[in-house]
């Protein structure tokens, strides 16, 4: 008779077969049998976090920077509910996570037992799928299925809830055979006809634009390479969503910068005036489209996405192509080479006028700001951070708010998987634990969390994790003492009634760093900024960098709510400013 394994052992056998190297977790009563087995499985390193939300975000950072699924292990009840924010975040941003949670023994389920909660009920709307495993015989196939669901199609989080008695029960373990992934939920249904139609549209267009998103990054590094080739071949301008940054080089001339609410003037105007919009792996989110009824009124719209339910959800498109980005672009390139070898030449003439218009918009320089030699402007701080780190293959995470938008505007990425930010859910407190996860995946790379002082305090306890595992993450706080984006909205929309957006009693971040056993650095003037940043980069331990910035700076440009793309508010430096701000303010 073959050897019998306990449920807890089977969990690790499965993780081993799935090539999992790191697991982020926190022990508790209902997962103790699993923790008891940890010592017997050396392939796996456990990272002990300080809060289950931190485990989730760290797993997200790990997943997004490595392309592999992130795995977390939490206990029942509060362990599982604490992970809910991170699961929802991963669901919104399509990050593959596998969450293993302990549950009270099966005979106690439904009795309001100690640390019991309806974990599968609570996480049903924030996972792609979840399972409560009531029989150890189902455990193996459930965990393998969980990895399959998390990583195929549009990726996302899944949860496997394992009652404590199931962790003790014994059964056989069959050797896992990695199968060719042909699950019915995966969609690669596009046909050559769709591609031909697209190429027809492309050769007819005189004002085309590529609008790319996180789907390109999720499709793997190959997709980013292919995208570069496609953009190069066509000569079309390209803009990217927040999540898509890095799939195309940020400093390339064909790149118009990020689009959307705080996107560039040229990108938003090009989206509004184009006659052909090719959406690759983006989802027409409301921060991108602005007012739907006036969104890009004159364009034919093409939507390439792996998730059929993304098609026509917010914006009606003329040509949907359901498939994996890399596969679709490969087919497009092949077809162009075969049927239109002179595409780029014949096309250049046609879209030259379009490029002239774009250059005009570009000359407005919408990300510009009024610099100061007395106080550090937050945009300036990010520009300096970029200049001083750009040759280092740096990984950037962010929290949520003004600093996040400034980072997206001023930090240029040229590789995918280098930019981890909470876009869909907008989770304050995401960046620090995400940086922990990124550093775990890339121990020798520079990992910086561009943070706001309010956000970072939400998950500050994870500094302790960074110190425990000697993860030299850099927390670069743009400290303006306000919840900056809240303050900005209050200034522009609520008559400067700064209701509860000022934090009156902030900790001394330098001392806080010391208390955690890491390094604290403070910069207060533009003069000393460069030296301090260099000091931070050269420190091989975790750093909290307290960058004191202008307290009243606003994030521009900005599309006010309910406005189309061509009605942006520009920053204070712009010539047209008075006109637009005056009119804009009544419109907001």
């Amino acid at each position, binding site marked *: 008779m073959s050897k019998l394994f306990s449920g807890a052992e089977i969990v690790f056998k499965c993780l081993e077969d799935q090539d999992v190297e790191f697991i982020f977790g926190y022990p508790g009563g209902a997962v103790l049998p699993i923790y008891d087995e940890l010592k017997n499985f050396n392939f796996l390193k456990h990272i002990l976090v300080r809060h289950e939300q931190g485990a989730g975000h760290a797993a997200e950072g790990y997943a997004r920077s490595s392309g592999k699924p992130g795995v977390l292990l939490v206990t029942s009840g509060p362990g599982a509910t604490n992970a809910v924010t991170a699961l929802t975040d991963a669901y919104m941003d399509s990050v593959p996570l596998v969450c293993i949670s302990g549950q009270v023994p099966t005979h106690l389920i439904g009795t309001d037992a100690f640390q019991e909660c309806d974990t*599968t*009920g609570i996480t*049903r*709307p924030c996972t*792609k*799928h979840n399972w*409560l495993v009531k029989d150890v015989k189902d455990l193996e196939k459930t965990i393998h299925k969980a990895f399959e*669901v998390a990583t195929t199609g549009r990726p996302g989080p899944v949860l496997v809830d394992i009652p404590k008695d199931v962790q003790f029960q014994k059964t056989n373990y069959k050797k896992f055979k990695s199968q060719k992934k042909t699950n019915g*939920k995966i969609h690669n249904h596009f046909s050559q006809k769709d591609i031909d139609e697209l190429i027809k549209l492309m050769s007819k267009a005189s004002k085309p634009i590529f609008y790319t998103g996180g789907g390109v990054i999720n499709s793997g590094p190959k997709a980013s390479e292919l995208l570069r080739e496609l953009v190069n071949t066509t000569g079309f301008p390209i803009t990217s969503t927040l999540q898509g940054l890095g799939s195309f080089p940020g400093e390339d001339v064909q790149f118009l910068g990020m689009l959307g609410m705080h996107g560039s003037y040229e990108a938003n105007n090009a989206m509004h005036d184009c006659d052909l919009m090719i959406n690759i792996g983006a989802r027409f989110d*409301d921060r991108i*489209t*602005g*007012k*739907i*009824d006036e969104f890009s009124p004159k364009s034919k719209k093409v939507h390439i996405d792996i*998730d*059929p*339910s993304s*098609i*026509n*959800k917010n914006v*009606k498109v003329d040509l949907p192509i359901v498939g994996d980005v890399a596969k679709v672009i490969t087919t497009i390139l092949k077809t162009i080479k075969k049927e239109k070898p002179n595409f780029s030449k014949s096309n250049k003439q046609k879209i030259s006028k379009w490029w002239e218009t774009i250059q005009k918009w570009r000359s407005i320089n919408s990300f510009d700001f009024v610099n100061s030699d007395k106080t550090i402007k937050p945009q300036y701080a990010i520009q300096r951070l970029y200049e001083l780190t750009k040759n280092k293959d740096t990984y950037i995470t962010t929290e949520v708010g003004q600093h996040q938008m400034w980072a997206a505007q001023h930090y240029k990425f040229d590789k995918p998987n280098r930019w981890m930010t909470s876009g869909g859910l907008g989770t304050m407190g995401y960046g620090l634990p995400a940086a922990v996860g990124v550093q775990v995946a890339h121990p020798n790379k520079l990992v910086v969390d561009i943070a706001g002082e309010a956000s970072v305090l939400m998950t500050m306890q994870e500094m302790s994790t960074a110190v425990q595992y000697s993860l030299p993450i850099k927390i670069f706080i743009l400290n303006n003492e306000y919840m900056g984006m809240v303050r900005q*909205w209050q200034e522009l*929309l*609520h008559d400067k009634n700064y209701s509860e957006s000022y934090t009156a009693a902030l900790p001394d971040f330098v001392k806080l760093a010391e208390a955690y056993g890491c390094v604290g650095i403070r910069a207060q003037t533009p003069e000393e900024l460069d030296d301090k940043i260099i000091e931070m980069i050269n420190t091989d331990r975790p750093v909290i960098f307290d960058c004191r910035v202008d307290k009243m700076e606003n994030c521009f440009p900005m599309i*006010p*709510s*309910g406005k189309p793309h061509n009605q942006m508010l520009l920053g204070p430096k712009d010539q047209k400013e008075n006109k637009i701000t005056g009119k804009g303010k*009544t*419109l*907001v």
Partner: protein
Amino acid sequence: MSKSKSAYSIPGKQGKLGTHIIVVWVDNETGVLARVVGLFSGRGYNIESLAVAEIDPKLNISRITIVTTGSPQVIEQIKLQLKKLVPVHKVADFKREDKKVIFKEMALFKIVGNKSKKIKALKACKKYNPIILDKTNKSYVIQITALRREIDLMSKNLKKFGLLSISRTGAVAMTRGSEVFK
């Protein structure tokens, strides 16, 4: 235009609403109904009626029939979102006006009254295949199968004949002819 103080865009135009019958074939497992129903409530779709039962005990398949209203865009979303659920095998969608599809609901009426009232009630149900499931001196329990609006009408009309209690199912649907939905 009114001054908006929201960070969100204002609602756009809405398409014309239509009533659809969505049929979903699912694995009969714990929580599957909650997944389907939760998807509807979570995304703000509405459910007019719901009927669900296992139809293949061997393959463990249940058939869920949902009557819903929405704009064409919303109906399309409902189908696509349902198809994404792991235990869902296939999804069919019929318009209520569709002549190629049969829709039926069942209702039980409890009539309490004297003999003449009971007879009148039974007569009124004549068009809808009435079956007397239970009778006593004072009461009838009548079963009918009909369309939703016909049952609506009957539950109004039977009041004067002593209708005391109504129990009704959601609609179930099947295509006419020899064809099966694949």
